[in-house]
């Protein structure tokens, strides 16, 4: 019998275990760091937020890494905000009350594809007279296109795509019937068909302020077709929030469920064997009945009728798993250990029942239990994801399973949003693989007889 530490050191001789340990270590690091970089309440607020939070994010954008694999350079999001100090802002007095604020947003557009949307967000402070904004689009080849004008109330957005007059103006400008606004603005007239004219574009906005105290802020967003490390969903939400926060949730659920189930099962088996009699018989009958009760339908029932809270689900999973069939396996070993001379010796020097159960029976089975805990983790991680995919995930928490569920309901694969399903699925698989590889290696370290098989 070697110490636990020595056995864990033996893992180093299994390359799969090393890879698995690295995966687990990364997952654990992410799980630990995530709550610090994005506190729980912040994550919940972001994930439940609407246009107010996600307005400047593109809809259904692919992750930025997609550009590494394609020859076309897909447009990325460009945000220019006067509050952030972007663009040139000059303010001049026109009369005693009226001032003119000129916003000049200049940006480089090197991409091969058109942006899906263009929007100007305006925010003004005034007493009674709304400021007025007029915008001009200047292309890299020097053409000037009047975009339009609008009166700014406190929070106003001007969506280029939705402006009919701009669309008709661009039809005349380009000579293409039914041309969309973005195509019209970025098209290279020198080339056949719709081609992006790469270069430096400029949006000049002239804001008229009719009150001395009035203030005006403008922001221009050219939405990208790719965004960030993980892309966005149909509600413009950044998928990285859910991918990041899904990690600690998956880890917590998997580890807690695996640890609690195994430890409680082991203790139940040990207590049953040690006390024997009706207690053992009762445990055996409960186990047999419990082993034919299907877990998932009960979870679905509770999720549908009572609560979908992840903690309720976790409790239920543990409750339904502790009288698992492993009790039989542990019992078989405990029955053997119970007859060991050292147990007799312990009783002879006065060890009490609880001491014998926890100090003499349970340690004997640890070599079997430690690999079991690790191997069980992916099962519970997948179970949590499965519940979410079935629409029974926690209504509040962003998780991996929830992303897959959202993607499925939004027809992600049909629409070509492969990344929406790919990323959470790959994370689930990697997590499962990591634990499985370590678990199998541990099994070999702790139960050397397996090495021959």
């Amino acid at each position: 019998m070697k110490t636990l530490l020595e056995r864990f050191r033996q893992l180093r001789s299994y390359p799969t275990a090393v890879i698995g340990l690295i995966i687990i270590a990364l997952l654990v690091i992410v799980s630990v760091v995530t709550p610090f970089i994005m506190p729980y309440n912040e994550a919940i607020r972001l994930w439940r937020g609407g246009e107010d939070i996600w307005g400047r994010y593109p809809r259904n954008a692919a992750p930025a890494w997609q550009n590494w694999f394609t020859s076309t350079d897909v447009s990325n999001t460009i945000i220019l905000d006067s509050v952030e100090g972007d663009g040139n802002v000059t303010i001049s007095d026109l009369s005693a009350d009226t001032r003119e604020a000129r916003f000049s947003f200049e940006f480089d557009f090197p991409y091969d594809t058109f942006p899906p949307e263009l929007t100007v967000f305006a925010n003004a402070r005034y007493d009674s007279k709304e400021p007025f904004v007029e915008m001009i689009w200047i292309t890299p080849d020097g053409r000037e296109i009047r975009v339009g004008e609008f009166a700014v109330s406190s929070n106003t957005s001007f969506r280029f795509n939705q402006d009919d007059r701009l669309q008709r103006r661009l039809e005349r400008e380009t000579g293409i019937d039914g041309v969309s606004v973005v195509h019209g603005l970025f098209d290279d007239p020198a080339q056949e068909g719709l081609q992006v004219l790469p270069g430096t574009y400029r949006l000049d906005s002239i804001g008229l302020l009719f009150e001395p105290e009035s203030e005006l802020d403008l922001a221009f967003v050219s939405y990208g077709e790719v965004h960030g490390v993980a892309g966005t969903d149909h509600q413009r939400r950044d998928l990285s929030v859910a991918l990041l926060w899904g990690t600690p949730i998956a880890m917590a659920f998997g580890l807690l469920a695996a640890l609690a189930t195994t430890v409680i099962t082991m203790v139940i088996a040990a207590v049953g064997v040690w006390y024997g009699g009706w207690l053992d018989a009762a445990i055996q009958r409960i186990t047999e009945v419990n082993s034919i009760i299907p877990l998932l339908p009960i979870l679905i029932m509770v999720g549908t009728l009572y609560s979908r809270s992840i903690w309720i689900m976790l409790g239920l999973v543990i409750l339904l798993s502790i009288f698992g069939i492993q009790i039989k396996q542990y019992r078989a070993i405990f029955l053997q250990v119970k007859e060991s001379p050292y147990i007799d010796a312990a009783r002879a020097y006065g060890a009490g029942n609880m001491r014998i159960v926890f100090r003499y029976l349970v340690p004997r089975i640890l070599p079997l239990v430690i690999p079991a805990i690790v191997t069980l983790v992916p099962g519970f991680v997948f179970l949590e994801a499965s519940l979410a995919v079935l629409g029974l995930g926690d209504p509040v928490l962003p998780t991996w399973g929830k992303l897959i569920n959202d993607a499925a309901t939004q027809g992600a694969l049909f629409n070509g949003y492969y990344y929406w399903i790919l990323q959470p699925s790959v994370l689930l698989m990697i997590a499962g693989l990591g634990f499985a590889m370590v678990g199998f290696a541990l099994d070999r370290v702790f139960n050397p007889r397996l090495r021959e098989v």
Partner: protein
Amino acid sequence: MNNDNGHMEISHTNGQALLQIKDLHVWYELKRFGFGHAGYVRAVDGITFDLAQGEAIACVGESGCGKSSLMKTILGLNIPTKGDVVFDDTSLSATKGEELRQYRSKIGYIQQDPFGALPPFMTIERILEEPLMINGVTDKEERRRRIAKILEEVKLTPINEVLPKYPHMLSGGQQQRVVIARAMVMNPKLLVADEPVSMLDASVRVEILRLLRKLQESHNLAVIYITHDLSTVRYFSEFIFVMYAGEVIEFARMEDLLDDPKHPYTHALLDASSDPNADNALVYREIPKGEPPSLVNPPPACRFHPRCPHFMPGLCDVKDPPNFEVSPRHLVNCWLYDPEVQATNLESISVNNAV
């Protein structure tokens, strides 16, 4: 010295007994389908003897004769079905719970298989600490001191090298020394040794037996030495009794029994014991025919009669033999030594001597 039902009563301590076994019965209930009663296994069926401080007694018998049940009952691990065990003025049948736990901790227990007797996941230090911790020695220094002292006594040195080891790192002899140290660490007055050397190499047997003898003398211990191997018995006990099918069939001083056995079963047992002598390879040894009897339905009257070479039909299978004192302190539970039987059948004596 005979009681009504013919069970042997062995008393030689003149009221100064440390341990008194009084008409002890240990029966295990057999169950049918988990609840119905299906009879008893009569593992120990009426045994009485005394043991004084500083005295050693050996108990021999083949496997399944009830010696382990007797031993476990003395240790307080089994509950007497009938009768009682009184150790150090504590009656086993009257103790429960915490008292029972304390009763157990006052008797040292040495087991047969030293490797099995030591929990494989504990260090030697931990193994020796456990009894002390359980019995309220909370001071770490005190525990260390007592462990060091006892390891010194069982000659397991250097102590600091031994303590952090696990049982599998020690040799069989060293393991048995740890078992002895564990049994001695609570300073018991009584040591129960269950075949302490039968699993050891012949080379270390004598050392372990000498060690036990030395401990017995230096601590004035009472020792119950249980074995099936008569060749190791000589080393320490003054008295010996032979068990067969849950009963004591012969009791005597060590030399008397070994040199002049009376009961036919004792004869057979002595014949079967190994003696490293090359001539023995050519000697045909008669062993009792048949197998040890069922303890659920033991044979009526004398339990040895189905296997006995001197079986007297109409007597041995009908009437329980009383104890006959063939010489001072030598009791035998056999009809062959009934003066009446001997008178009516003079031949039987010569038969007996021929065995």
